[in-house]
């Protein structure tokens, strides 16, 4: 008998044994009998008319099984890749939604746009044959930046999308904001760029598809964060395969960060092709291929204005953003810079009026969609940066201006002027905790020590909130979601009392196999080792929306908790019969059903046994078996947040920014496993630090070539870039999720870019620097310092 390991404990992870010993089961590890190899041929041009493809030489090449193009897709009458959100402009006019064919038809719109799929006996043969394709392109000028794309005369991606504007979206009370600005004692202004990022999970995307003629069933193995959603989007909307004839499996997946939560054209093409050639086909992306096909993130250009009264109280906030969508609308694309951005602009502050306008813009770049944080890091960055700008301009301390405007703990639930209502929080508590943990009171001494070495030291704050636990379906539906965002779980109790959970979320690093087992162990009193979590297979798991938006514990965990409650309810009925007592008198505690006030008990195992061997069982009123399912649709978002404090040292000789200290105190609600939460915070913070200091997806204008298309050009954070971080939690409980959880997957990435850049600006403020765009690379900082009148460093 093992032990119950419940909520708040930190057992080592169940998933680690297989990963540590090389026994993980990733898509690229899978082989199927008779499997062929597929490679995608991608556009080398950012923008071109696709006049035609001559595939005769490729078809004749050694080992080639098939060559498929957009013409074949059209001939088979297949659908376009769907967008899961339909947003509207201020007048209610729907966004422009041009088709996104799975293989390009008539035109290519970004470098990496797929034009053909070559299937051969081996990858080498497929690659050789791909080079024999004669593709006739008429190259057009590309436009890659949002400012250029909306400019009159810019290259037009779609004939019916004037000025490349997909949607001119707005939120908030424009006239209330204008009134407040007229009364303001001070207006702070800031123009900024939120740099374009590439998620780069360490496992490149991959897929295997197989068709079984005997049963007319398809199986797709895919590196996906949401296999059921892929089954629905691809089966129902693209390939028109009935849902019961399509199985989607996402086995071990090597990181996602949003990049793997979309329905990609590669999935549809390979599944369709497997049926045509009647063989399993495997495709594994190279890292370079991932750079030009994995959906990118962020890429905003923003003008923000904050109105304040003479005491530094915020009166109104006005934000105008141009958001890059890339060449087509990806699965969640238009939702990210709108619904996940505007509603977060109140932050942790009492902000009486907000107006946000976002122009969602097509360009000749990889489609842009959710990347860890998705909209919320962008909102946090705008707000937390302009708060610092206002503080500096008004001569108010940066911590003090935050305190003056923070929502006090007692004021929750707090309704913001931009749709969302925060249920709980304590930003002041997080701030106080972080100030102490970061040893801010001795910062002056550390700054002086840096100064003696000729370095500039800076401190940066970010006090922030996010909305996660996506999402209340009714609310999301009003915002344009075309699907529901609930979650489901099945708790299957075996005759011997062990438990298998089938859950619709997907584990790709978050430790669900451990955390969810703790929930079951806690609720049912079953030993931790006697609980297994099954996910990622539409044939084994009833349904699910997958993992993204810090939703797995919040929404999936809640479904699991509900299903476990149903098991207890049924167990009580069985126990009442066996113990010859009234159902209302049966109590369940620590794995035992007992009659209140007596010593008559039945163990959980005995009840499970009776459910499957129903000799003495109330068969007239109760079905045999002990397996329960629950769906959970949240009533609100959850609102994790916190305070991050970054400390940097800038070397004026080289422009190098070194992150020397990092402190985070976050409110993530109830913590199920503190070890896993800390790991999520560490990883999230470093992805935000990557955005602030290192990472940047850069395109060449005109040609549309991605200049940062490899790990050698796109700088990912490495172990020696980072200090030991201090992370802690200061939790208030979510008032509407069953366990009080808020989610922790994205907080690190949302809070950290603003903290780091605020620290960099602080370090350079004595030189008149008021803003630094991300990433704060040595080159950018060195140039900034050359332009500033750099005084000689004090000795």
């Amino acid at each position, binding site marked *: 008998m093992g032990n119950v390991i419940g909520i708040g404990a930190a057992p080592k992870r169940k998933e680690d044994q297989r990963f*540590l010993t090389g026994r993980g089961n990733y898509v690229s590890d899978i082989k199927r009998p008779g499997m062929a190899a597929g490679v995608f041929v991608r556009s080398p041009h950012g923008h071109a008319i696709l006049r035609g493809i001559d595939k005769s030489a490729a078809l004749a090449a050694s080992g080639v099984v098939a060559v498929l193009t957009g013409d074949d897709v059209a001939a088979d009458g297949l659908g376009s890749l769907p967008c899961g959100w339909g947003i509207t402009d201020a007048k209610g006019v729907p966004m422009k939604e041009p088709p996104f064919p799975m293989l390009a038809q008539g035109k290519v719109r970004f470098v990496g746009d797929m034009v053909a799929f070559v299937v051969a006996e081996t990858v080498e043969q497929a690659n050789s044959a791909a080079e024999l394709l004669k593709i006739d392109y008429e190259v057009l000028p590309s436009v890659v930046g949002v400012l250029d794309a909306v400019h009159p005369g810019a290259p037009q991606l779609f004939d019916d999308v004037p000025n490349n504007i997909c949607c001119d979206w707005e939120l908030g009370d424009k006239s209330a904001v204008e009134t407040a600005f007229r009364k303001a004692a001070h207006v702070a202004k800031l123009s900024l760029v939120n740099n374009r990022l590439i998620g780069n999970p360490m*496992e490149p995307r991959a897929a295997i598809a197989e068709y079984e003629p005997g049963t007319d069933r398809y199986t797709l193995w895919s590196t996906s964060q949401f296999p059921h959603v892929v089954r629905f989007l691809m089966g129902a909307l693209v390939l028109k395969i009935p849902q019961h004839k399509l199985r989607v499996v996402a086995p071990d997946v090597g990181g996602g960060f949003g990049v793997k939560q979309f329905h990609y054209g590669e999935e549809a093409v390979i599944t369709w092709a497997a049926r045509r050639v009647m063989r399993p086909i495997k495709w594994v992306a190279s890292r370079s291929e991932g750079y030009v096909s994995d959906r990118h993130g962020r890429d905003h250009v923003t003008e923000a204005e904050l109105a304040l009264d003479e005491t530094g109280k915020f009166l109104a906030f006005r934000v105008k953003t141009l958001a890059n969508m890339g060449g087509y609308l990806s699965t969640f694309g238009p939702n990210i810079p709108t619904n996940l951005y505007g509603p977060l602009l109140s932050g942790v502050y009492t902000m009486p009026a907000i107006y946000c306008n976002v122009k969602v813009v097509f360009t000749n770049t990889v489609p842009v969609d959710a990347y860890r944080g998705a909209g919320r890091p962008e909102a946090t960055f705008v707000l937390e940066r302009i708060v610092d700008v206002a503080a500096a301009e008004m001569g108010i301390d940066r911590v003090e201006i935050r305190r003056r405007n923070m929502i006090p703990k007692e004021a929750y639930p707090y309704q913001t002027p931009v749709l969302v209502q925060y249920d709980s929080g304590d930003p002041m508590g997080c701030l106080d905790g972080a100030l102490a943990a970061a040893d801010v009171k001795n910062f002056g001494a550390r700054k002086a020590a840096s100064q003696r070495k000729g370095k500039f030291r800076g401190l940066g704050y970010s006090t922030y909130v996010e909305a996660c636990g996506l999402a209340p379906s009714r609310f999301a539906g009003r915002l344009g979601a075309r699907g529901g965002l609930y979650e489901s779980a099945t708790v299957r109790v075996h005759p011997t009392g062990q438990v298998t959970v089938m859950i619709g979320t997907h584990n790709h690093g978050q430790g669900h196999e451990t955390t969810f087992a703790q929930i079951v162990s806690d609720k049912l009193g079953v030993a931790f080792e006697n609980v297994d979590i099954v996910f990622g297979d539409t044939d084994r798991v009833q349904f699910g929306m997958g993992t993204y938006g810090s939703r797995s514990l919040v929404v999936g965990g809640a479904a699991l908790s509900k299903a476990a409650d149903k098991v207890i309810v049924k167990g009580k009925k069985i126990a009442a019969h066996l113990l010859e007592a009234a159902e209302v008198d049966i109590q369940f505690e620590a794995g035992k059903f007992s009659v209140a006030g007596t010593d008559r008990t039945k163990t959980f195992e005995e009840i499970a046994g009776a459910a499957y061997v129903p000799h003495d069982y109330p068969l007239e009123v109760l079905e045999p078996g002990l397996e329960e399912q629950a769906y959970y649709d949240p009533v609100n978002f959850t609102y994790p947040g916190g305070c991050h404090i970054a400390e940097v040292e800038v070397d004026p000789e080289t422009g190098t920014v070194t992150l020397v200290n990092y402190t985070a105190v976050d409110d993530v609600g109830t913590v199920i496993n503190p070890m896993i939460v800390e790991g999520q915070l560490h990883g999230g913070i470093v992805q935000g630090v990557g955005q602030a200091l290192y990472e940047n997806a850069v395109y060449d204008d005109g040609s549309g070539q991605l200049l940062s298309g*490899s790990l050698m050009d796109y700088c990912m954070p490495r172990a020696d870039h980072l200090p030991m971080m201090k992370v802690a939690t200061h939790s208030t409980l979510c008032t509407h999720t069953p366990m009080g959880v808020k989610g922790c997957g994205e907080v690190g990435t949302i809070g950290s870019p603003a903290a780091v850049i605020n620290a960099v600006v602080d370090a350079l403020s004595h030189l008149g620097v008021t803003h630094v765009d991300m990433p704060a690379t040595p080159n950018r900082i060195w140039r900034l310092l050359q332009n500033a009148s750099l005084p000689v460093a004090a000795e």
Partner: protein
Amino acid sequence: MQISFTLNGRPTTVDVEPATLVAELLREQLNMTGTHIGCDTSQCGACVVHLDGLPVKSCTLLAPALDGATLLTIEGLQGAPDSNRLHPMQEAFRENHGLQCGFCTPGMVMTAVALAKDKPSLSEAEVRHGLEGNICRCTGYQNIVLSVMAGAAAMNAAAKGE
């Protein structure tokens, strides 16, 4: 061409195309998928194995170079390939939550074992520098660094005990 080498302690002879990379040989021909391929520019380190005791990126090594050599992969690290025991470094990663999605983990562990070998202790700075060739996107490295320091101490304690 035919090559013979010692793979995880066992004599192995295979026919390979001369242009085959060691990572491909392991994964495609020998069905040993513990060694991962995360990039195409020798940057990520998911494919690190030990060649004659030294860590190498197997995505950048041609199979013919194995002839006569000794190769150790993640599958052979903990002893016999049929055991499910953990090497002290693997145990340290488990204890310190030094992995999340697991994809970079085999390469990270192989690099760490090589780093810790014959070193009585490793400083944080040495570990961070030593991991420069291995990228992890999940952990922010903090728990990996702690894992490697703990694993190095455990390896040395075990070596002294022998």
